[in-house]
Every structure is written in C-alpha cells, then in structure tokens.
C-alpha cells in the first residue's frame, strides 16, 4: 500500500499543476507552471546575456590595455591592482545607487558597475599569464630578432592565452551572478524575475530565474573553455 500511494498522489499533483491553482497557491516548486510560463523568461534571459557579455567584453578591453601598458612599466602593476581592487570591494548595490544620479536608470548604469567588477580579475590574470612566459623563450625570441612588439604578439600573448581565458571564465561566471542585481538599476535581466514586485517570495519563479542564471554561467564557461582549447593546441600534446 505504502509503495503505491506516493505515485498516486504525484499524478494528482501533475493534474493540479496543469490547471495551475493549488501548487502555486501553496508556493511550492511547480514544474507545470514553469512550462506554461517559460516565454516570460526569454526577454530577461537575453538581457542577462547582453549585460554579461558586454560588461565582460568592455572589462576585457580595459584590463587588456592596462596590462599591456603595465607590462613594460612594471611599477604600474601595484597601483592598478590597488585601484581595481577598490572597485571590486565596493558593494554592487551601493554602486548602482551612486551611479543613478549620473547615468540614470538603465543598462548603462548596470554595465558600468558590472564592468568595474571584472577589471581586477581579468587584469591580474593577464599580468600573471605574461609573467609566466618562460624567460628562455623570450630570450630566444629577442635573440632571433623579434622586436618587442613582435615578441608580445607572437610569443608572450599566445603563451599567456590559457591564463587570460581562465580570467575571463571567472569574470563571466561572477558577472552572471552579479547581473541578477541589475534589476535595481532598472536594467532588467533575470533578476527582474526574482524580484518581481510582491513576487520576491514566489518560490517557483525564484528557482527558475536562478536556475537559468546558473545554466547561463555554465554555458559561457563551456564556450570559453572551448575557445581556450581551440587556441592552445600545444597544451594538450603528450609530453615525450
């Protein structure tokens, strides 16, 4: 008897969910509701992708430029790490509200805040990657007649690439998480489905939006890992 009963009641729940009412009313996790309402997540998800990709993209552009400048002027590394470190420690919500009077509500505000969080991670990884290039490879490169610029683009950056992409992976994962707060800057994203008005306690909605964010972070990570592997075939060879 005991074995049959749970199966029976599950079927009952299924039927309930299709009709919608009681599962939601009890604020349980309702798969049927998710299937029925999936469309409402499309736009926030796309916003979320946009916020993440643009922020990490701009963050990379800025951090990369800073790293190249600091690569030949080592004394700049300390101050840049310090400055980006300060940006990194500011509470994100506070940044949104501080920026509101200047940039207003919307995507710009969110992107500025999110970008500032990526700088530290990406910058540090680029610098570390360049530092880890074997000294003898650089020596041989210069000794073969490469100019400093050629050495950078043909030897140092390709060899630093795995670490640079590792930085992008951390940054993108972090940014997907932080972007759920972008709703407070009026920039939408999956956060808008977590805190829709009085629905902040709506369990099914919170779990769905949160789950999508996790999946998005995972997807971006896999894409970047794929890029890294495609661009650094020498890392996968069997050593002699």
């Amino acid at each position, binding site marked *: 008897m005991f074995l049959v009963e749970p199966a029976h009641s599950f079927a009952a729940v299924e039927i309930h969910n299709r009709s919608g009412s009681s599962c939601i009313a009890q604020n349980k996790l309702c798969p049927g509701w998710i299937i029925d309402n999936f469309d409402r997540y499309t736009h926030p998800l796309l916003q979320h992708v946009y916020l993440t990709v643009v922020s990490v993209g701009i963050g990379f552009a800025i951090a990369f430029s800073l790293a190249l400048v600091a690569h030949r002027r080592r004394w700049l590394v300390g101050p840049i790490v310090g400055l980006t470190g300060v940006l990194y420690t500011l509470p994100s919500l506070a940044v949104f509200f501080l920026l509101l009077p200047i940039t207003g509500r919307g995507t710009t505000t969110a992107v500025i805040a999110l970008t500032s969080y990526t700088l530290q991670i990406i910058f540090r990884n680029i610098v570390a990657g360049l530092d880890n290039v*074997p000294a*003898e*490879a*650089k*020596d*041989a*490169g*210069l*000794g*073969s*007649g*490469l*100019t400093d610029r*050629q050495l950078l683009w043909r*030897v140092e950056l*390709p*060899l630093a690439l795995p670490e640079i992409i590792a930085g992008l992976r951390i940054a993108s994962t972090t940014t997907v998480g932080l972007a759920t707060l972008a709703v407070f800057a009026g920039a939408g994203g999956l956060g808008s489905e977590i805190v829709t008005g009085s629905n902040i306690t709506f369990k099914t909605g919170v779990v769905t939006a949160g789950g999508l964010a996790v999946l998005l972070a995972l997807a971006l990570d896999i894409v970047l890992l794929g890029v890294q592997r495609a661009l*650094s*075939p*020498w890392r996968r*060879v*069997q*050593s*002699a």
Partner: protein
Amino acid sequence: MTGHWCSGRPQPAGASITPVAGAVSAKRLRSSSSASPVELRGVTKRYPGQHEPAIGNLSLEVPAGEICVLVGPSGCGKTTALRLVNRMTELSGGDILIDGESIRARPAAELRRGIGYVIQHVGLFPHLTVGENIATVPKLLGWDRKRIAVRVEELLDLVSLGKEMRARYPAQLSGGQRQRVGVARALAADPPLMLMDEPFGAIDPINRERLQNQFLRLQSEIKKTILFVTHDIDEAIKMGDRVAVLQKGGKLAQYATPPELLMSPANEFVEDFVGADRALKRLSLLRVRDIELWKAPLVRVGEPTAAARTPGDADISHPLVVDDEGRPVGWLSERDLAGETVPATPRIAPDPILELDDVLRDALSDLLQSETQYAPVVDERGRVAGVLSIAIVSDFLASDDAAGLAIPPAERVGT
C-alpha cells in the same frame, strides 16, 4: 668539395676537410654558405652601481669559419661577452665588428636576424610546432611560404631529425631533439655567425657527447664562425679551433689553440683551470700517426728462424711476425724460435693492433687495458707501420713536439 660552402669568399686557412663517417652529401651542402670574421675591440661592459666592470677592455679576433670557445669560471663575463655581440646586452665601451661592420651600424633586431643564437635551455616556443619554430627568422625576413617550407625540410635533414618531427610541439621532444631544433632554428636564415651559450649544458653526459660530435660534423659542413660559451674546459678543448680563457672581469687570460693551451698555459690561473690532467687531455688531440713510432723487428712467415735471432731493437724483446702482405700475425716467442721456420700462427697473438688514425688517448687506453707495454700499429691497408709503446707516449708528452699538432675539431669525433 672545396669552395661549396664559401660561395665567393676565400676559404679560411686550414679549412680543407677530410670527410668523416657518414660523408657529406651533396644535398646537405646546399644549405651552407658564408662565414664572417668577428673582432672584439677593447670591449667594455659596466653595470650601473658596480665598481668593477663585468668586462674590461676585451679584445679578440675570430677568423671566419672557426669555432672560438669562451671558457672560464662562473662570473668571468663569458656569457655577457657573448650577449654583447648580438646586443642582447649593450656595450659600454669599445666596439664589435662582424665582417668589418660595427654591430651598432644597424638596429638591434635587424642585426640579430643575421646572427644565429642558441641558448642553454634552447628556448623553443612551446606554442609553435617544430616547423614553425625553425621558420622564425625566415618569417621575420619575409620569405615566401614555399621557400620557408623547403628550408625547414632542409634543416630538419641537416640536424638529423625526421620529417615527421615538423608538426610536433616542443613538449613532445626529448632534450637532445629540442637542442637540435634549437640549432636548426638558429641556422634557418643561414647566418654567417652563430652564438652558442652553453648549448649542451642541460643535456646528460652521454647525450651531450653525442650532440657535440653531431655538431662538429655539422660544422665541418656548414663552416660557420661560431662563438661558443662553456664553463667546461673539456668541452672547450673538444669543440674549439681556438679557446679564449677568461678570468674574472672578462680579462683574457689566454687565447690559443687547444694544444697550445694544454702545452703552455700562459699563467697559473690557466694552468689551474686547464687542470692537472692536461697531459692526458693533449693526447685526445693527437693521432697515433702524429708521433714517431718504434721500428718493429719484422720477420716473415716461413722465413728461417735463424734470421729472426739476430738482435733487433733492444726495446722490443720479440720479433713481430707479418704475413706476405705485411700484416701482423703475432709476436715470435722463445719456443717459436726453437722451430726451423717462422710459424704462421705464433704463440703470442698481436693484441691489440692499433691504427695510425687512432686517437692517441684511445690507443694508450688500449695498451693499458691489454696490460702490454707496446703494440703494432698498422696503416690503412693493415700493414705494419711501426710499434707504439707506453714509453713513447710518455717521452712524447715530456717533449715539446706536441705543441703544434692537433686534430681539427671536426675530426675529433666518433672513434
């Protein structure tokens, strides 16, 4: 085969080469060409904040096509001296001329493309294949794809690496293979000058010896001017046409050929550095044919033993039996002498038999190993040319005769 590698340049004195094992193929000769003389003129290097200069007023001339080894204890400035030549380190004073032209006449990067550079840890680019590594300088020089491909293949062949190596990454190679790729990369654009900084330093002793020999054979084909840095005096003596012994502060203690260095060290420092076994080291620079041998008392198989009984050289107690061709078959013992005629198989076998082309050190080692005082020496056709004894070798070392004699480095390999 003369003149192939010098393309229009006069060949350096003493550059005629006797092909050694695995003679030079016509195909290989294509990849060789010019060599430039190098001159260091009052070269000085000071580092800021240091009282003594790292190198003070060093002058040195290296003739085209020769290997000049810079050797000395650590901190003597040998690596610095080398790096001054391709401006990896900039001069503080003096000048360096390559083929008569100052290294300061051109931008550093351009200068370096014309100078092969091999370093201890090779410094292959880990992210590039063997082929791409070798193609580094040709690419910088803007060669077209096809020419580069042809050249890479040629170089792989030159350093005895198979074609299948081309697509491998450095991580897939052994230490010795990496080293050879490093040499191929340095030779890619056929530079008239090569700089080698402890190129075999990170290789285990057995493979090092092999690589040294391979490199000397290669050099006998390509005839580059080579500046070679090492801290190992044995390597210096083996590899160098000339050896520059440096003292602290880049001071030139002696600049001489290996036999000169071993025979007459210029001062106590050189003597210490060369080592107490320098007499033995000299033997590895000589062949048996280079010293005067004893004349053996010869008897032919079938001759009456009466003839053999006439006293020969006092140093050799037994006559040496040879066949009709003059080849040694054994030593005639007292009991053999009791017979009527000289037997075809004497009781004492003629072991070991040495050859005129044997390196003297190996010949001596053969004698010692066989626990014998002397042994017959044969020529190329196997005919007795004389007798070598331990006494001759020690007398020879005590005399000054050995000073001018030496096997060229390229022929010191593989006996």
